[in-house]
């Protein structure tokens, strides 16, 4: 058996986002007979199916791809749960930014700034304690008023809100023109 071919296939299946088909493998490995590819693939799949392996190669949508074995589903989900906890979605980030720069603000003001209803992300941010309710606005419907929390400053290593980057600083940083390099 061609060990190099088996290893190549393993690397290719690993990085491929879509199931890797036999045709695709054959096209990529020009000059290698399909026979050989088929044999190497079969051995690779068999090797991973063995006891003591946590990931296997499964056939799906006309190709092959790596997946964790069902036996470890509970552990896998627990891990993903933990990893998720520390991160913010881009919707949350945008909402947080709108609040940080416009506080104190109401839900409808945040939604207007973003152009998207932000009720749900506000709830998420409240749960994560990145924002807090500071009262109600004297306006029709007396909507709740939000501000960023102490935690928010701690999270970003800021001493006060005055330390948020200003528009000028950001546009200087984001500015595209200067091709000349530093």
């Amino acid at each position, binding site marked *: 058996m061609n060990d190099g071919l088996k290893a190549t296939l393993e690397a290719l299946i690993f990085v491929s986002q879509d199931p890797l088909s036999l045709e695709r493998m054959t096209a990529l490995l020009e000059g290698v007979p399909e026979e050989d590819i088929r044999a190497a693939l079969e051995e690779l799949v068999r090797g991973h199916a063995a006891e003591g392996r946590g990931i296997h190669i499964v056939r799906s949508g006309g190709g092959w791809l790596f997946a964790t074995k069902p036996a470890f589903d509970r552990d896998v989900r627990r891990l993903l749960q933990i990893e998720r906890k520390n991160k913010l979605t881009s919707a949350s980030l945008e909402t947080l930014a709108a609040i940080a720069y416009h506080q104190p603000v109401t839900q409808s003001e945040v939604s207007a700034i973003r152009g998207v209803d932000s009720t749900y992300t506000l709830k998420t941010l409240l749960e994560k304690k990145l924002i807090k309710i500071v009262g109600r606005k004297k306006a029709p419907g007396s909507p709740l008023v939000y501000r960023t929390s102490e935690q928010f400053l701690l999270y970003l290593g800021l001493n006060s809100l005055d330390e948020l980057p200003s528009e000028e600083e950001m546009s200087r940083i984001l500015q595209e023109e200067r091709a000349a*390099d530093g």
Partner: protein
Amino acid sequence: MTESPDLPPEPVEPRSDAAPSPAPADGYQVRLEIFEGPLDLLLFLIRKKKIDIHDIPIAAITRHYLEYLDRKEQINLDREAEFLFVAALLIYIKSQMLLPRETDLAEQDDPRRILVDRLLEYQKIKAACSLLREKEEDQLLQWRRHFLPPLAGQGDLDVVELSLFDLAESFFLMMKRRAADATRVIRGRDVTIEAKMKELVGLLGERRMIDFLEYFAAHGSLEEALISFFCVLELVKSRVAVAVQDELFQTIRVWLRKDPPRTVAHE
């Protein structure tokens, strides 16, 4: 100045993030670009002349440095200022060295010290760079997976880490986007008060009564909506229309008066 300055050895690392420059007319520009900056050039000269970095003959190095700059005809002006700044520093140090002194200089009083410290630090960074480059090359050959492998019933895992930069960037890009949206609508449709007034009166005549909030919400841009709000006020003020709000926070109903004064708003 007769001695021609040394030029660096064969092409080192071309600077690929610089703007693509036109084919060099005289070749000098390209060569100067090789140096990341004035410190890089100084280190090059020190190495080339086999000078002890802790005991730099300032007069000689200043001469080499200036000769080198002299030959450059078309250097980037931004960069030129930085090269000239170091030239000025060299000349200043040279003048300090020439001052008559009664005793030998203590090491910390050596006028060259400020330059030497910077050069040593920069040299260290350059050395680190060549080691880091090896690590980079090694890493670039190995591919990681940047997608989540299939899982049964997984939720949304589109995740972003919070950093001050992300936060501020997100905000200002959002504001830019909103500003662009607003301008697009206004540019696309030129709303004048007259046109809006006509539209409103026409609509009122046709439907007899409109729900103002509904009408207001149907507008493409805030600006257009505000103009129509202004028009309603104008129509009410000039007694062409009547607006009624039954209760606070409820919708406003607007209808035409049966006997509008003839002077207003029909044209």
